[in-house]
Each structure stands twice: as C-alpha cells, then as structure tokens.
C-alpha cells in the first residue's frame, strides 16, 4: 500500500514532527518521508481531509466481539472493521465468548480469524477454565499462543486463594493477571449503582463497597505475591484512592476506566434505558470527578470503551433481564475528546500498549505506518448512522460528541471513511 497523507497535523509527543502540519509519504506500509510538502510523481492515492490530524494508532484494552458463540452480537470480522473505522489499530479482545477462550487452540482461533486485518487483535485468555472461577486455565500455553493477558471478563474471582495462586503462577512468565473488581456477595442481585436513584427506581443496588472491597483484597494479595495485576474498569472514587496508594508503594498494578464511567452518572437510568445498564454500573458525579483526576495524574493507566455489543433481543426487554453492556468503539474518540484536550485524548488512546507488552511505533521515517486519522474539532450528534457494530446498543446514542474519525493506516492497509 502506497499513500500520501496531505496536510496532516501530527499529534505524537514521541515524534520530531509533533504539533506540525506536514505531508506523510507511506510506501509499502512504511513511512518513507515526512516534510512540509511532498510531491506525488508516482501518483499515489492522496488523503486530504478537513482539519486532518494523525497520531500513533489507538489501542483499546477491553473489547468484546462475541465470536465464537455470540455471533448474533458481533463477529470478529465486523468487530475489527468497526475498530478500524473508529480509529483503532489494535484491540485486546476479551474471552467474552461461548465457549470461553481458555486454551491454546482458542487463542490461535482468534489470531487466525484476524490474520489479514488492518487492525491487530490481541487475545485475552480466560484466567480460569470456562471462566468459572474454580481452576486456573493453561495460562502459559495461552501466552505462548499469543494471549496478552488473562481475564474472566466481568466475572470476579471470588476465591482469594485462587487469586493468590494466579498472581504467583503468572509471575513465572510475566503474565498479566486481570481481576474484575466486584465482591459478588455484596453486589448481590444489584443491577445499578446503589444510590438514591436506585432507591427511587426500585432497582436493586450494587454498592460501591462491592468494588472497593475487591480492589482492596486484590491489592493485599498483590503485595503478598509480588505479581503483576491489572484491574479493568474501576468506577468508584475509593478505588482510585486505593490504587493510587498501591502505586505509591510501588506495587505492579495498573487499572483502566470505561469511558462511559467518566461521563454519565446513574441518574441516566431514570427512564430505565437498558443501554445505560453496564457493569461496573454508572456511579455518581463524585466518582466521575475522582476518576477524571485519577486519569489526569496517571493513577488510572488507560481508558477503554469496554465495547460490548449486545443484540436487541437481550436489550429491548425488562431492565432486570437486560444484559449488561454498551458498544463504545465508535463513540470512544468523540466522547473522550469532549472532556479532555486533544493531546490528552490521544495520550489516553495510545496508552496501555506497554503494559500489554506490545510495540509502539512513533511517527518517524523508517517506522511502519501505524496511524489513526481524525478531526478533533467537528461536533455532531451521535446516531445509529455512526454505528458500525452489528448490535446498536450504544449508550452515547443521541448525545453530542466532539471530534470524528477518518480512519487508520496499519498493517500495510488503509481503512478510511
């Protein structure tokens, strides 16, 4: 693939051209020239877009595509297309499948499905067999096959001894263990944040306490085991505090927050809209403020869309019965860019690769082109027309976003809207 990107403002602090508006010549997938003005004698395809900006390719550490088993929600092929059109060049895919991805063969299946795609798919293997929280899955074997982390998606590890063993065992080969922050006995049958809104709606509450107890427990176990822990999708103010303190103690812990948990409070559930039914649940403004300060000071290492397509049959039903989840890849950039500066937004969208032991490729001559292309200034209302996912369960539907994505250049391919 040969392409000439015209008049693009580079947003990449690791690039010599950071904040400069330049032309970028890409030949056979590699950046061969960057300068103010590049001629196009070979008549390569040119990309010119309004207010075009480029950055290193974005990465999302928590997406679900359903396949195998839940193809009615999403397929790997369409999921990766969605990621590409949403500006992502890499996604870590959860074992949110049926059967659960918990073996070498399963990891290989995911890799092979994504082989020729512009977007790199990094599989996350289940931490326990069938994600049932009883016995460890073959973690080393899965790592050999390409698993970047081990996570029973949204299933808490109830048994603290199992968490201890997981952290100890995975540290043999620097495996990244993820623990969903929820104490199930405390969360009980809760379907939304426990607060005055849950009380007024008669919905069972899932208290912040459930998350914080589990975070505290896992940090204690981490300190004991000296392992490597990632806590995906924290949602409460106290979780931020706990992790901040753990980092000060130099524990090897990282964490993420879902973008929607940075924007919406539980009050959005007042109309029983099931697209707002997510796990962890939407919390309060106080939590949002603490999460945002955690993002700003680096306590929270990465943000994620926690993209989770759910088909209409599991969403257009009574609230208690509806499945948790919202799609988020398509709205990720516009939502983040609405609350952070473009510099911070890009930083957040490119963070996390190192934690998952992935390469980063700054925008420089000689590097392979791994680019996201976007306009940070446009504003629009996010509608079904902006959704590429097979399922349309978007929390952000009808909301105003700032910034739209043009596409990506990665793996010697161009995907552009």
């Amino acid at each position, binding site marked *: 693939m040969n392409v000439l990107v015209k008049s693009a403002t580079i947003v990449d602090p690791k690039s010599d051209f950071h904040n400069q508006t330049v032309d970028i010549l890409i030949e056979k997938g590699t950046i061969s020239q960057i300068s103010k003005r590049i001629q196009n004698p070979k008549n390569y395809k040119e990309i010119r877009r309004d207010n075009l900006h480029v950055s290193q390719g974005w990465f999302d550490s928590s997406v679900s595509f359903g396949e195998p088993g839940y193809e009615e929600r999403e397929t790997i092929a369409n999921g990766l297309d969605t990621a590409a059109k949403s500006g992502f060049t890499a996604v870590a895919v959860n074992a949110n499948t049926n059967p659960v991805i918990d073996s070498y063969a399963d990891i290989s299946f995911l890799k092979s499905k994504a082989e020729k795609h512009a977007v790199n798919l990094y599989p996350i293997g289940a931490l326990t067999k069938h994600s049932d929280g009883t016995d460890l899955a073959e973690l080393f074997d899965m790592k050999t096959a390409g698993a970047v982390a081990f996570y029973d998606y949204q299933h808490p590890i109830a048994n603290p001894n199992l968490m201890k063993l997981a952290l100890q065992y995975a540290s043999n080969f620097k495996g990244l263990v993820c623990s969903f922050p929820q104490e199930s006995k405390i969360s009980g049958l809760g379907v939304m944040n426990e*607060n005055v809104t849950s*009380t007024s709606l*008669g*919905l069972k509450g899932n208290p912040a306490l459930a998350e914080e107890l589990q975070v505290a427990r896992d940090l204690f176990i981490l300190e004991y085991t000296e392992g490597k822990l990632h806590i995906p999708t924290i949602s409460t103010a106290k979780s931020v505090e706990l992790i901040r303190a753990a980092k000060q103690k130099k524990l090897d812990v990282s964490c993420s927050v879902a973008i929607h948990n940075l924007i919406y409070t539980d009050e959005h559930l007042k109309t029983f809209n099931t697209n707002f039914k997510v796990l962890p649940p939407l919390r309060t403004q106080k939590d949002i403020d603490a999460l945002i300060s955690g993002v700003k000071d680096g306590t929270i290492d990465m943000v994620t869309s926690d993209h989770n397509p759910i088909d209409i049959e599991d969403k257009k039903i009574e609230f208690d019965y509806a499945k948790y989840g919202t799609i988020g890849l398509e709205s990720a950039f516009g939502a983040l860019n609405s609350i952070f500066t473009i510099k911070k937004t890009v930083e957040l969208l490119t963070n996390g690769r190192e934690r998952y032991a992935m390469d980063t490729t700054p925008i420089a001559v000689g590097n392979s082109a791994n680019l996201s292309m976007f306009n940070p200034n446009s504003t629009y209302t996010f509608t079904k027309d902006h959704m590429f996912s097979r399922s349309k369960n978007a929390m952000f539907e009808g909301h105003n976003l700032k910034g739209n994505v043009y596409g990506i250049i990665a793996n010697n391919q161009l995907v552009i809207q």
Partner: protein
Amino acid sequence: MSELSVNHLLGIKYLNKKDIQLIFETADHFKEVINRPIKKVPSLRDITIANLFFENSTRTKLSFELAEKRLSADVINFSASQSSVKKGETLIDTVNNILSMKVDMVVMRHPNPGAGVFLSQHVDASIINAGDGAHEHPTQALLDSYSIRERLGEVGGKNVVIVGDILHSRVALSNIYALQLQGANVMVCGPKTLLPKYIKDLGVTVETDLRKALNWCDVANMLRVQNERMDISYFPSTREYTQQYGVNKALLNSLDKDITIMHPGPINRGVEITSDVADSDQAIILDQVQNGVAIRMAVIYLLASKIKH
C-alpha cells in the same frame, strides 16, 4: 374540563399535585356511586381493558376488575401462569398480541421494576401500573392518601410513618411520593437491614425505634415483611422482628394520642400488627380496600377520557 397531565399511570413520581386532587375529586363521585343500590355507571361502555398479572395478586386484581366492571368497561384477564410467557414470548409481543384484539387500556402487575415504563415506551395503549417489582404501586398510594384524607380531613401537614420492609416495598416508595406531593411529613421506620441506605435522600426521616416513630406520627402505615423477595435473612427471626416492629394494642394505648393504623394487606396477623389492632377502631384497613375500588374507577375513568379525546 380538567384532565390528568399524563396518559399512563406508571408511578406517583410522574404525577403532579393537581393530578392527585383530580383523582380524589373523581373518586369522591365514584365512592357515592358504589354505595348506591345500582353500583354501576355506563361511562366506559366503549372501552376494553386487559388486566395483565405477571405476578400473583388477589385484592389488587379483584379491585381493578370490580372498578372496570362498575364503569361498564369490557374486561379481559390474563395471568402469567396460563400464558405464552412461559413459552418464552417477550413482554412486548404478549402485550401487542392482546392489543391487536382492540384493547384500549392495560392494567399490569409485573415483578420487574420499570416494566410499566418500558411497556409505555413500546406499545400503543394506556398503561396503568398495578405494581412493578419494588418500584411503584401508584393506585395503592392513592387509595392510602385518600383514606387518610377521609379519616383526618386532609393529608397536608400530617405526620405519616411507614413501618417495616421498606427495602422490598413498592407501596412505601409510591406512598412517600404521594404523601410528599400533598405536603405530609414522611418517616420510615424499620430495621436498618430493611431500609435502603440512601432513603434519606428522598426527603424522609429515618427512625429505627418504633415507639419514637409512633409517638411522632398521626398515621402509621404498617407494611408486610416480603419474605418472598428476600434472597437472604434480613433479620434473625419473625419473633424478634415482631418484638421490635410489631404493633400491639398495649403499645398503641401507651401513646399520648390515638393514631390511625393502615395496612396495604395482606396482613400477617401477629407479626406486624396483632389482631386487636387490626380489628380496632383505630385501623382503617377495610376502608382502604373499599376506597381502592373508587380510586381505581377514578384513575381508569380519567385515563380513558384522554383516550377518547
């Protein structure tokens, strides 16, 4: 002519004060009707109402059915145990199937909070919520306030305590909203395990000592402990619950004033109230039941008149 501000009765929280006044004034008229020798009016001869009960109910279902028949509406009944719901049909499909037979109004009881709201967003009929999980039971709260008004002259300014299992109660929530709209002071009383942690934020006072609560109030609304909604024991034994939160005649007699005792039914005699309390002049439990028919006639009549417009 005045009309309701809403097209459905999904919860008290969606009503305003004028709606409640209108419902009460209309109920006054119907209360007079149901005490006539011929207890029926021809108002809704052109209206068909489906009573959909996805959860067991005795008095609410009977009360609605009677109200509908007193208004001369055509009535069909449906309960989940006999239906296709058991075969996996969705709520929207079930209701749309019924509506396609030209039904104008749906009265629904459902175990899930928000089921009525959900239905109103997706089907074309007037919906009356007859209880949705632990969310709301608006006609119960209306008849409760109506009964207080009947006994004490007005609701505004009165002190009302709701006692018992607030956590699992739709009656409590609807009552809180209804009483507050009319200017009453509301307290909830029960063991902390049965009080939602954030209930105070709804503007009610919280008391765990029943004697203090009863001394404060003009009216005590005694709720049943909803064992069927509990996934774990919220208190050690019924005996111990009764020791702390049961009302008996001796306790009532020891108060400084005569308070009014209410209960939405069904009563667990000897648990939340003893028989001598339930059957005393201070209790208005059977008045509540009678008023329930008049209130439901009023609600159905007022919503039906909006359909006709």
